[in-house]
């Protein structure tokens, strides 16, 4: 068997279905790679080899008997350690939950099991999906495979880094203010924040109830569509879950963009955020040109200023997160890392009226976004205006999470996908973000697939990890 480290989900699934790739050998090869390399990247908090090899053997037996369940059958994956898997710890990368063992699978995790996936382990995250990168937690922070002195972004840090490192082809993350798309951007992989309510949040440690989303991260668009297909669907026990049909996300992937209306939200990265890396801005403009060259109808659209979305979202996030963490912050403040504690204390002094003012404003901002999207199919904008920075560049690190175009679509709940868009002069990944109408993930994937095919960026891997 050749090295399967960078096999995509779809590619591996075809090989497994054709009985040319053994799920057992695939999982063993990835465990060997993780064993050899993860000490440099800290992607994993816990490995689950016994469970994985049993799942892989079961998958192999079923597939050899002609019972292929679908594209995830026999495919290795890992989960951000805020997602419950029965019998395994869910630590949220925090001392606070170090002894917390999940009693049942989160529905998203259960869907991965039912689809025949092979869980390799649980992944590093920013503490409680908000506090990081931090060196004062029970586990070290994940590092960026493109340059291990750089942050991988977060909070789905281990997931994005592990994909870029070739440790697995699929993972799930969460996104409350960009925690799927930011690390996807910094690690050069593909991350989808689906529509709010599309994927169950039950069994996932909450950060902010009305902003939390669960979504897939992969190394390319097709894999991402296949993975969303597995985890999307109604959960009657998640009060925000949408009871709507789940379309075939891969059906229209290769239809191209001819005739589709693409709106450029240029003011987010060219006006609202100052002094973005010129190469990042150029990468977005190149993407726009590529889509135009392939027949997309391009226009420019305007939403309210980015700072409005950030202010609204951050007030809501702080208030809802404090309601989750208040008791721990009162009883065990010393058990948080410094970054997490500071972020979570932000909600302590908020007044009820402030929270409600933000939620009332949210309605206005959503209506403005809906109006801006009225005449387009998909929007294109930045994910981040900067590539990843070094851990020891404290000034940039303090500012970089504020220089993202992420919160608007947590506030509106629209689907938003970050995909690779080239590299900085220092060899760090750049990105572009596609945004759709609520529940129109399939159209987002279609446009992103056209861009990915034209650009070829998804085929690149970190030079030190290419084999």
């Amino acid at each position, binding site marked *: 068997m050749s090295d399967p480290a960078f096999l995509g989900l779809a590619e591996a699934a075809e090989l497994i279905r054709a009985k040319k790739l053994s799920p057992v050998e695939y999982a063993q090869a990835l465990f060997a790679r993780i064993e050899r390399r993860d000490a440099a990247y800290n992607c994993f908090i816990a490995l689950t080899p016994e469970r994985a090899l049993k799942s892989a053997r079961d998958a192999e037996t079923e597939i050899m008997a002609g019972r292929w369940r679908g594209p995830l059958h026999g495919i290795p994956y890992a989960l951000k350690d805020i997602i419950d898997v029965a019998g395994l710890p869910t630590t949220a990368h925090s001392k606070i939950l170090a002894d917390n063992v999940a009693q049942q699978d989160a529905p998203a995790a259960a869907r991965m099991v039912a689809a025949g996936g092979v869980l390799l382990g649980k992944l590093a995250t920013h503490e409680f999906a908000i506090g990081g990168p931090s060196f004062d937690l029970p586990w070290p922070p994940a590092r960026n495979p493109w340059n291990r002195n750089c942050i991988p972004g977060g909070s789905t840090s281990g997931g994005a880094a592990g994909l870029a490192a070739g440790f697995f082809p699929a993972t799930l993350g969460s996104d409350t203010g960009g925690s799927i798309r930011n690390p996807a951007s910094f690690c050069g992989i593909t991350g989808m924040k689906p529509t709010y309510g599309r994927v169950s949040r039950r069994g996932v440690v909450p950060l902010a109830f*009305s902003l939390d989303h669960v979504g897939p991260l992969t190394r390319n668009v097709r894999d991402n569509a296949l993975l969303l297909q597995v985890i999307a669907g109604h959960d009657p026990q998640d*009060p925000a879950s949408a009871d709507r049909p789940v379309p075939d996300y891969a059906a229209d992937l290769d239809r191209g963009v001819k005739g589709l209306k693409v709106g450029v939200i240029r003011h987010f990265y060219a006006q609202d955020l100052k002094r973005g890396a010129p190469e990042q801005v150029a990468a977005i403009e190149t993407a726009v040109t590529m889509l135009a060259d392939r027949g997309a109808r391009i226009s420019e659209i305007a939403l309210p200023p980015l700072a409005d979305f950030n*202010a609204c979202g951050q007030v809501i996030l702080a208030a809802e997160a404090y309601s989750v963490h*208040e008791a721990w912050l009162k009883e065990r*403040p010393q058990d948080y890392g410094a970054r997490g504690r500071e972020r979570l*204390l932000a909600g*302590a002094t908020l007044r009820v009226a402030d929270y*409600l*003012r933000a939620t009332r404003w949210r309605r206005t901002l959503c209506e403005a976004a809906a109006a801006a999207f009225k005449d387009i199919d998909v929007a294109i904008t930045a994910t981040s205006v900067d590539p990843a920075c070094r851990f020891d560049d404290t000034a940039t690190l303090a500012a970089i999470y504020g220089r993202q175009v992420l919160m608007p679509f947590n506030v509106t709940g629209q689907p938003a996908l970050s995909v690779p868009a080239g590299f900085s002069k220092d060899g760090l990944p750049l990105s572009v973000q596609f945004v759709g109408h609520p529940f129109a993930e399939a159209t987002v994937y279609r446009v992103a697939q056209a861009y990915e095919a034209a650009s070829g960026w998804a085929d690149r891997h970190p030079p030190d990890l290419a084999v």
Partner: protein
Amino acid sequence: MADDPKTAELRGAARALGLDRLTDEHLGQFERAMAAMQRHLQRLPRDLPPAQEPAMIFCAMAAFE
């Protein structure tokens, strides 16, 4: 040793919120967190129409369905 006035003020504010286990280091974080949140709060509009509902609304039937 007694707190300096600023630390004493922060400690008082934290205690009023039930956060009476914050260390001096934590109080510094608390201060920065409040300052960051103030910047966001200043951006919230003050002229929303009185009848404008929040984005997230209570639905009476939801729990019964």
